[in-house]
């Protein structure tokens, strides 16, 4: 080389170097609240072996983690806990929402279950399925690594631009539609006491 660098020295951008290091040493925080958690454990176990992608260090303390994996449904009582855990994780951090329940509430369209965690915390990657197979979670982790390498910066500048919530607003049109659908079975109308308005 013209500048006379020895052969074992590389030149790269600092952002790229930092993102490369981060993406290959993701430390997941498993937030496993339901059946998807079993699949998350299977992903970490020997057959599927998340360690192949450098993400095997499951830490049960948010202060040591940089990848939140929400596996399972989140109920009203658990959501403040989830938000606090997200806020306690140090920057830079990412979030994978695993399974139909974490993404949308799934079949649990009831008064206590939050209809998708992306309404209340930012989510980077959604994994569909009920439950997703371990391969799907691995695919999401690989995709997450590529996203970090593609967009990551040393000081997390890219996060400051995401100023809108990643999920739908609380009372979006979808929610109104679902509330209306609830009465669509003839003969099974929701009982409404006289002189009251329910819902919206």
């Amino acid at each position, binding site marked *: 080389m013209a500048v006379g660098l020895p052969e074992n020295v590389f030149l790269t951008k600092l952002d790229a170097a930092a993102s490369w290091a981060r993406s290959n040493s993701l430390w997941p925080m498993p937030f496993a609240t339901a059946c998807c958690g079993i699949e998350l454990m299977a992903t970490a176990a020997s057959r599927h072996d998340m360690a192949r992608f450098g993400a095997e260090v499951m830490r049960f303390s948010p202060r040591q983690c940089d990848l939140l994996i929400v596996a399972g449904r989140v109920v009203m009582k658990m959501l403040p806990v989830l938000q606090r855990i997200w806020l306690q994780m140090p920057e830079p951090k990412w979030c994978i929402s695993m399974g139909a329940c974490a993404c949308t509430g799934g079949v649990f369209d009831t008064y206590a279950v939050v209809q998708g965690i992306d309404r209340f915390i930012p989510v980077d990657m959604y994994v569909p399925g009920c439950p997703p197979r371990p391969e799907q979670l691995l695919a999401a982790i690989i995709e997450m690594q590529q996203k970090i390498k593609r967009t990551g910066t040393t000081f997390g500048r890219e996060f400051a631009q995401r100023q809108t919530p990643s999920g739908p607003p609380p*009372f979006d049109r979808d929610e109104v539609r679902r509330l209306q659908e609830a009465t669509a079975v003839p003969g099974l109308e929701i009982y409404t006491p006289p002189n009251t308005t329910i819902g919206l």
Partner: protein
Amino acid sequence: MLELKALHDQFGYDITESRFRDNRRFLVPSAKVYHVLEYVWRELGFDTLADLAGVDYLEYPGATDRFGVVYNLVNSVTGERVIVKTHLNPPDLELPSVVPLWHAADWMEREVYDMFGIKFAGHPALRRILMPEEFTAYPLRKDYPLKGRGERHNFPVITRAES
């Protein structure tokens, strides 16, 4: 062995019995239910409260009362089982707590209170057990919609830029 006649002699004739297969159910007015349960435990040895549940009979065919509370008792020596029921109507949704008789009633009464809003006088700590403390409705009542009244959306939204 619990006999209806013994209850009639002790507590009056407004207690009725019904049977289904080997289930024996005694329907007791709510004012007398604590005395009946105390008698059943102290005199007849029903030492286990297997279950305590609430029922909402709103729009139930043929029902005349709104709420029911069901006590499921077992005599652990003889294996005998008995069900004691009582009915309640708003606005008077209060029963004496049976925690002094069976400690098992503690969490079950809290659950009935949480889901139906039936109060148990004398309970040591009648707080919500399943729903968050700040929840105001009673979700297992039949006039409460399955999808709630928007409580599940009532949280602050955290965006990526501010976290």
